[in-house]
């Protein structure tokens, strides 16, 4: 029973810690992947646009900048909507290419876009590209929401962890208390014949460590197949563009997770056992 409660606690905490870690990775990944399209103004020439691209690439905030010609933009658009016959038909009917040239800018960090946009608003640049900030604002909104979600996950994780720690503490406390009661005759004799306090205490501390050991083994044995089962669904739904695999994360950090689980559970159990002994063993 004690081990079951510990397994539940460790399982929940491990899932939450994994999710928390993955959401942090996702957030970092999203921040790094955000790029924006800046439309080249109709009056700007291709040479001017390409010169601007060169200048942008020299900025420390810019990871990459590419010029996309109107023809290339049209080709990309056709490819992105190749399954939509209405759009294809409409494009065929148009005589002129409706799409402008653009400059694709990838910043090193989402927060760099403000300074990039300020650069684009300078006199030498503002006649070449449109500095519509709506796309940047949208990207920043996405980041903000992810950040907020990550914070909420952390808060929930903390709350759930605290609850499970409290429950586990009480369960182990009760188990040790019962063990002390069951062995009270033997303990009384040990005290009488001069057994050292640590001789009397050690078996109960070892009991706590054993609970932690078995709980860790069982939790890992359950967690591995569960994550393997869930990973494809989560990866395809949430993490596809970001190369994050929750199952891979688990495998890559397996020994660390086992170590932290065992250490955490063992320390909790020893604290609980010590408390029970101080109340009922009086050694």
């Amino acid at each position, binding site marked *: 029973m004690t081990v079951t409660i510990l397994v539940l606690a460790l399982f929940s905490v491990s899932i939450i810690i994994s999710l928390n870690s993955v959401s942090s990775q996702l957030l970092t990944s999203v921040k790094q992947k955000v790029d924006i399209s800046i439309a080249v103004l109709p009056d700007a020439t291709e040479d001017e646009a390409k010169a601007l691209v060169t200048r942008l690439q020299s900025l420390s905030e810019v990871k990459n900048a590419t010029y996309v010609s109107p023809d290339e933009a049209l080709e990309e658009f056709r490819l992105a909507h190749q399954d939509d016959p209405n759009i294809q038909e409409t494009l065929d009917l148009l005589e002129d290419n409706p799409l402008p040239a653009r400059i694709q800018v990838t910043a090193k960090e989402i927060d760099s876009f403000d300074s990039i946009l300020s650069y684009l608003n300078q006199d030498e640049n503002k006649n070449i590209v449109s500095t519509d900030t709506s796309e940047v604002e949208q990207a920043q909104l996405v980041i903000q929401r992810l950040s907020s979600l990550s914070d909420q996950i952390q808060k929930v994780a903390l709350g759930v962890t605290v609850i499970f720690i409290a429950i586990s503490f009480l369960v182990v406390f009760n188990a040790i208390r019962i063990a002390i009661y069951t062995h009270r*005759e*033997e303990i*009384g*004799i*040990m*005290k*009488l*014949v*001069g*057994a*050292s*306090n640590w*001789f009397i205490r050690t078996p109960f501390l070892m009991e706590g460590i054993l609970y932690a050991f078995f709980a860790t083994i069982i939790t890992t044995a359950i967690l591995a197949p569960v994550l393997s089962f869930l990973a494809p669904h989560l990866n395809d739904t949430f993490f596809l563009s970001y190369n994050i695999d929750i199952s891979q994360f688990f495998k890559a950090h397996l020994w660390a997770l086992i170590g932290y689980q065992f250490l955490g559970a063992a320390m909790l159990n020893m604290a609980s056992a010590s408390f029970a002994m101080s109340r009922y063993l009086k*050694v």
Partner: protein
Amino acid sequence: MIEFKEVDKFYRNGVQALKNVSLFIDAGEFVSIVGQSGTGKTTIARLIIAEEKPSDGEIIIGGWNITNIKRADVPLLRRQIGVVFQDFKLLPKKTLAENVAFALEVAGEPRAIIKKIVPQVLKIVGLENKQDRFPNEVSGGEQQRAVIARSLVHRPKILLADEPTGNLDSINAEELMALLKKINDLGTTVVLVTHNREIVNKLRRRVIAIQDGKIISDQKTGKYIL
């Protein structure tokens, strides 16, 4: 060897078990502490083995002031005092020899020493032929003798017996007393806490009488006169 200096003992419920008790027991003495039930005899026994602490006064055992003894030091004190109680306190799933050996195991004695000492003490108490029996396979008197054997393994300077004959018939009680006298003759201080009038009167040794938590008499070769 054992000295109580103006010791008072109050329990949590406010009951005063001992009132200004002062006594001195020299090394090698055989002393009976007598009195009716509830007069404080067992409290004295508990204070000697530091199961309780005095509310006031001082207790000195073998030159060691144990009045405010630390919990970590209590096991060391108890290895110097052999204790025999009325209810035997033998582990039912261990043989007599294993019960005796247990006292050495908990003190961390090596196996070789345990193998040497256990037969010796069982011989002293006359149980050398019954060492492989379990407690429920021997008589009450033999169980109590096994307890005495266990209390002797650390070669204690003091043997404290609290109502050791309480669960024994008169013949076994007499045999037990003979054994305690034999142990005393070997140099161990024996403190016998009892309300058994017959035993005390036969012993003709020092008798300290307690009534209402106070010592009312202390006679070198006394009788149980209460």
